[in-house]
């Protein structure tokens, strides 16, 4: 079976992992540079993607780092923090954290050159810390911190100088958690969240790696979990562990696409569809009750597209066909036994549908054939999610953007850019649905409610309920 066929099989089963050859362990937080996405794993092995969905090592350059690099962009430069240890699981724990800069991540650029490495933290051979697995954060105030440590003892945080990448003057290494791996910190809505990985690493399909977090008002902790437990006591609320076909989520990194759209990069210890190998994964981040959770990419299937605005459903504007039966209102029908009312079927109504383009509208959901949309992932995408064709279930009639930033459905899906849709779960759990392209404009728009009963395309705003949709399966 060829690669394309393999990819197709994988895509039909799930859209939870990246496609291509996304093999990596301990991925750095994903960086964008000149239109491409980059990450590096332990040992400095690169992965590159031009769209954020299909990844491979081609086009990247191995960087001279040890374990588990992390990356952050500060101004117009990229800062890499990485680590080395002479020990390992059963060895000593003399680790070091080092930083280095580059103006670009594109190895073909004449500006591509890493600066001399600076050691910013270390652990001794036998202390209660192993200085590896660096994670970087730039606070809203512009302060730079690095977290480090692993399963052996304390996780520590120390402040760095964002201008040099070296330790800040007088900086203290502070214990903030125990026995995590792959920590990093993010800021959200007034809290610093410390994310770390618990469980068993590196045991393939038997790995129990899982990402947990606690939060604090200070970047130096204490970080408390959802049951009030300090991460220095081992606490941590689960962000992601395992999903069907994928085990061992670890090494969290956050990428903010824009306000309201956040992605988490990590690795699966084992991707069952890829021989149990360790692969890069990217999923949406959903914030629920002040805590981050891994969201979901839309699986191939049939959905109601429900407006967050009113709760009505997107449908194609075809003649409403009434169903018979079910008139036993107000207790009518006496003592006759119940019978199943037949659902309206596609073949009951499709013969009367127009054969050309059909408009869409938004109305009460009654699980009618003109309201059921099938999402099918395609083999290209955006960061962390594929493009989908969205068709009326049982047909090839596809949702499409039109010139003038309006909507229609075309009788046959052709794969044209205006028929491809990115579907991103937002931080509040709802979805944003955007066409890959709109004829006649480069403007980025998404599916919006206009009034309760109509839909159009418009600019995305996370604070605008009209931009949000729920995808329901029953």
């Amino acid at each position, binding site marked *: 079976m060829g690669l394309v066929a393999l990819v197709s099989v994988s895509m039909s089963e799930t859209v939870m992992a990246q496609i291509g050859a996304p093999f990596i362990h301990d991925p750095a937080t994903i960086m964008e540079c000149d239109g491409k996405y980059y990450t590096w794993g332990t040992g400095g092995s690169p992965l590159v993607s031009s769209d954020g969905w299909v990844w491979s090592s081609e086009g990247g350059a191995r960087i001279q780092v040890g374990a588990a690099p992390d990356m952050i962009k500060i101004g117009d430069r990229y800062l890499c923090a990485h680590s080395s240890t002479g020990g390992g699981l059963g060895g000593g724990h003399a680790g070091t954290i080092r930083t280095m800069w580059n103006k670009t991540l594109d190895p073909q650029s004449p500006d591509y050159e890493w600066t001399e490495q600076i050691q910013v933290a270390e652990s001794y051979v036998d202390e209660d810390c192993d200085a590896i697995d660096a994670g970087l954060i730039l606070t809203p105030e512009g302060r730079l911190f690095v977290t480090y440590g692993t399963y052996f003892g304390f996780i520590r945080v120390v*402040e760095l100088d964002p201008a040099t990448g070296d330790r800040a003057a007088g900086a203290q290494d502070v214990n903030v958690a125990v026995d995590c791996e792959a920590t990093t910190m993010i800021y959200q809505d007034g809290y610093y969240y410390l994310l770390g990985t618990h469980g068993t690493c590196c045991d393939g399909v038997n790995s129990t790696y899982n990402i947990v977090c606690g939060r604090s008002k200070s970047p130096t*902790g204490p970080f408390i979990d959802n049951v009030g437990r300090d991460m220095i006591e081992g*606490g*941590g609320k689960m962000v992601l562990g395992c999903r069907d076909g994928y085990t061992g989520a670890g090494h969290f990194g956050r990428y903010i696409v824009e306000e309201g759209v956040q992605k988490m990069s990590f690795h699966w210890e084992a991707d069952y569809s890829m021989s149990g190998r360790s692969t890069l994964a990217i999923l949406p981040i959903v914030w629920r009750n002040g805590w981050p959770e891994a969201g979901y990419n839309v699986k191939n299937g049939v959905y109601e597209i429900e407006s967050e605005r009113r709760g009505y459903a997107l449908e194609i504007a075809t003649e409403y066909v009434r169903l018979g039966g079910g008139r036993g209102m107000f207790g009518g029908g006496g003592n006759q036994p119940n019978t199943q009312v037949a659902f309206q079927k596609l073949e009951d109504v499709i013969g009367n549908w127009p054969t050309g383009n059909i408009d869409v509208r938004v109305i009460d959901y009654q699980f009618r054939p003109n309201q059921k949309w099938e999402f099918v992932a395609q083999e290209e995408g955006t960061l962390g999610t594929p493009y989908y064709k969205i068709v009326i279930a049982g047909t090839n009639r596809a949702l499409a953007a039109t010139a003038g930033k309006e909507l229609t459905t075309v009788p046959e899906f052709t794969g044209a850019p205006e028929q491809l849709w990115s579907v991103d779960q937002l931080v509040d759990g709802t979805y944003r649905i955007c066409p890959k392209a709109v004829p006649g404009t480069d403007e980025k728009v998404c599916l919006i409610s206009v009034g309760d009963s109509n839909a159009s395309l418009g600019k995305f705003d996370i604070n605008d309920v009209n931009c949000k949709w729920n995808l329901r399966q029953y």
Partner: protein
Amino acid sequence: MNKNFKLILAVGMAAVLVGCGSNGSKIDPSRVANRNVEYDQYFTEIKADAAPAKPDEKGFIRRWTIIEPINKPNSGNTVFTDSYILTELTKEYFKGQFTNDIKSLPKTGDEVIVETEAPRAGGRGGFGGFGGGAPQGAGAGQARPQGAGAGAPGAGQARPQGAPQGAGAGQARPQGAPQGAGAGQARPQGAPQGGAPQGMGGFGGFGGGMMGGGAPAAAAPQMIKDTLTWHSVDSKLFNIKLIRFALGSSNGQKRYGLIFNAFTVINCEQDVVVRLAAGSNASSIWWVNGEKVLTLQADRRMVADDGMSKRITLKKGKNLVRAAVINGPGMSDMCARFYNEDGTIFKNYTITNN
């Protein structure tokens, strides 16, 4: 590095750090990194007739009587299935190991001789160094606790000399240095046994086992006679850092691949219904008054309140709590406290070692 000089250096570093928080940030001084890993940073050895202790502010039990660990040299932690730990943590290595008779409990300083597997040499070094930075002149062992049997104190731990671009070789455990010899941890010449990455399939290979899988060795283990001593201790931390107990009580000879057995006595003023909450790294079994009340299986990190028992009754007077913990390579520690039925922490008791 001279031990006294190291102490001066550590104190000096702490003074500088505490006094100079960057950007005026408020940092709890107790959380500033302390790199001193001497035994007495973790434990205070207490006498057999020590005055009763109380649980700490959060209810954690810090007083335990622990016997020096039994060798069980697993090279990985993936073997800790339910049946494995039940077998290994209930195996009797010496008479009275599981006694429920409070009047006959061992006292600090008591010794037993057990037949155990010999430790295996060679750290796993699973990452093989990854691009260097392996310290040179890596340090020596740890000091033995005061009055804890024979043997000269080990040399202090040396600070690595931080070669920035090293070869990335792993470190090896000492090759069977005798107990009490005070020998340090030696860095091998060249790549050590086990230092090369083994089973790296986890990084793009086929189905993991990157860390070598951890399956017990097929060959019959070499058996040795080992003299083990009981130690009554008060932990200076909420958790009991078993790895530090092992290192400190063995002159650095015991680190990984061990079974720990500990007990403590809970003195209640009246009968009370509680739950025992415990965490351990890695697997453990917990007993109260002879009844197995909690099992924490699998390769796991110590998490406070990780597991909690069914309701149990602590009776008026003395109650015996036992713990057995097993770990392969990596950190080993445990913590325990009691909860009332209503979810509040139970602290109305004293703790003794007899």
